[in-house]
């Protein structure tokens, strides 16, 4: 067999995977997006740009998503970073593995059940009841943007914690000693060494969470009371309720396009910021 033949054989499984998992579904979505809705729902083959022309009908959903995704990513980052920092830098190495497992264990249960726990905690008989008891009455937490952010920060915690943890964990502790030796107090050491050195992990975590948040619908529906409408919710409704597969596909294709553009821009930016560094291991 020629070298070229061998290469093709070796690449075949990866190529097949790529084709089945990525190219085929995307192609189907793309084809559907140029079709029409059947009288009783579903898809009727056609070639029309009507679905794309109708996109402004979901403008609010896109707008909400483009706000939710970065804000939610930031919220997840703000919660995850201190946790990852504690686990990687401060925690006793003896307990590190156990603590890490404790962070993951809740995520073995379904997001649905975990969201119900938050519905209870943030609901009238949870924290507001406690606040009422100490004299702060009338606080509403559930079904607010706040509760959605809490749910997102919590739901995406491991995705954000892990890349940052790995980064901080393998950070050479001698660099921190060197910084201290050169006269930097601990907080400046954090800002000048720890934080910049952990940026690749932060970038990876943010990217993962951002991409998933672009399609998120469950947490806003459960913890936001369904009052805020995201592209994910629009897709669920279009495919499962009004069964407008053609329009749903156009919305999905647009979402994928927006994601590609944002993620590419983001990676360009990160690469430029990290161009000087050895440890830019984003992808």
């Amino acid at each position, binding site marked *: 067999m020629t070298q070229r033949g061998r290469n093709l054989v070796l690449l075949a499984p990866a190529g097949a995977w790529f084709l089945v998992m990525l190219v085929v579904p995307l192609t189907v979505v793309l084809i559907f997006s140029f079709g029409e809705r059947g009288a009783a729902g*579903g898809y009727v083959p056609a070639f029309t740009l009507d679905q794309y022309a109708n996109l402004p*009908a979901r403008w609010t959903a896109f707008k*909400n998503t483009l706000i939710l995704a970065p804000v939610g990513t930031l919220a997840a980052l703000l919660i995850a970073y201190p946790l990852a920092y504690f686990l990687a830098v401060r925690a006793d190495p003896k307990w590190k593995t156990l603590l890490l497992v404790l962070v993951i264990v809740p995520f073995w249960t379904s997001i649905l059940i975990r969201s119900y726990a938050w519905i209870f905690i943030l609901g009238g008989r949870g924290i507001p009841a406690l606040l009422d008891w100490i004299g702060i009455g009338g606080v509403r937490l559930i079904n607010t943007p706040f509760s959605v952010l809490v749910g997102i920060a919590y739901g995406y915690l491991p995705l954000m914690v892990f890349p940052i943890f790995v980064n901080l964990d393998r950070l050479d502790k001698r660099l921190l000693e060197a910084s201290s030796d050169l006269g930097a107090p601990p907080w400046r050491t954090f800002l000048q060494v720890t934080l910049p050195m952990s940026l690749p992990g932060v970038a990876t975590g943010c990217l993962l969470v951002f991409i998933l948040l672009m399609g998120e619908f469950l947490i806003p529906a459960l913890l936001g009371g*369904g009052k805020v409408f995201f592209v994910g919710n629009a897709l669920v409704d279009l495919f499962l309720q009004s069964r*407008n597969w053609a329009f749903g596909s156009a919305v999905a294709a647009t979402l994928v396009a927006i994601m590609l553009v944002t993620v590419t821009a983001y990676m360009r930016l990160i690469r430029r910021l990290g161009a000087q560094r050895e440890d830019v291991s984003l992808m």
Partner: protein
Amino acid sequence: MTKNNDTISKRKFMEELYRYKRGSVTRRHFLGVTGLGTATAVLAGAMPALRPRRAFAQGDIGDRVVLATWPNYHDPANFDAFTEATGAHVQVNVFGSNEEMLAKLQAGGSGWDVFVPTNYTITTYVGEDLIEALDSSLMPNYDPAAYDPRFSDAGSVDGTLYAVPKNWGTTGYAVNTNHLDGREMTTWKDFWDITMDAYSGRTMVHDYQLTTIGNALKYFGYSFNSVDPNELAEAEKLLLDAKPHLFAISSDYQPPMLNGDAWLTMCWTGDGKQLNTDMPEIAYVLGKEGGEIWSDYYAVPKGAPHRDAAYALINFLLAPEVNAKEVLAHGYPSADANTNALLPEELLNDPILYPAQELLDALEFGAAATLTDPNRAELLARFKSA
């Protein structure tokens, strides 16, 4: 190991599942909202190991029958009895909305033997050629004469029987009377007015265009099924005005009603009964202007893999003594006089299950056109994203 091990563990599991769901998951749409219904169904179909198995068959109908139905809508003990009698296990897939069921059947390869469509969808299924004409000789327990025709008519299209009645019910609202301060709630106008006033921030509406738009239309006295653009425009304005005052747009209304976060919600019969049982201060109200009445049916999809078992299951569940147990378990009324004859007097007199005739008279069945109307779907999307 006895031959029943499988059965017992399965029954136990179902009981646990039902216990968990009771009070936290309502009859419909919740699974639709989460998309979990489809996921469960796909998963169960894709993984043969998850299917129940039996060491040997007791009948000749096969070892399995697949039922697509709603959450909290059966007595699990009846399924066990069916398995005991026939050797076929009942594999249950639960769904959140009629639309989801339709989408699944349209996509093909559902693997269902029996499903439970609501009245207004049946003509669509017939039109799309997704549903079998039923042979009533295979269902000796089906006694058409014993049924109130109101709740069985939709099962026949152009004189052909496609579906037999399961249960019926109404869509009204549940209100926590503790906060009413003597006010009386009798109409949909009351519902929307108090939402934008004393109950601001405490009201829930369904995440479902049929009922949410339909009940907004009732505010103006229009038909629950209206697709008239002007009438819909008025309903939309009402919905948009009310939105800032809503606690949530969700069909999962039992938990917030029970913990006091929500005081008022659109509600189906069975949930109304359950809420009232748990908290007597929660009343179930049917708007005087009208609203929805509905009836669910058993039907067999085209290409059902276990057709004999499908008939056997429907026939079994229609037996009055079995059906009575079902009603006692889920709290939705039956239209079958033979079944009702076996039910306790107090249940038959329960105004939640069996509302006064003048209230019932004002109600409308949902229409197929309403379900598939694209304008109503877009209206709901605008309402939710506002």
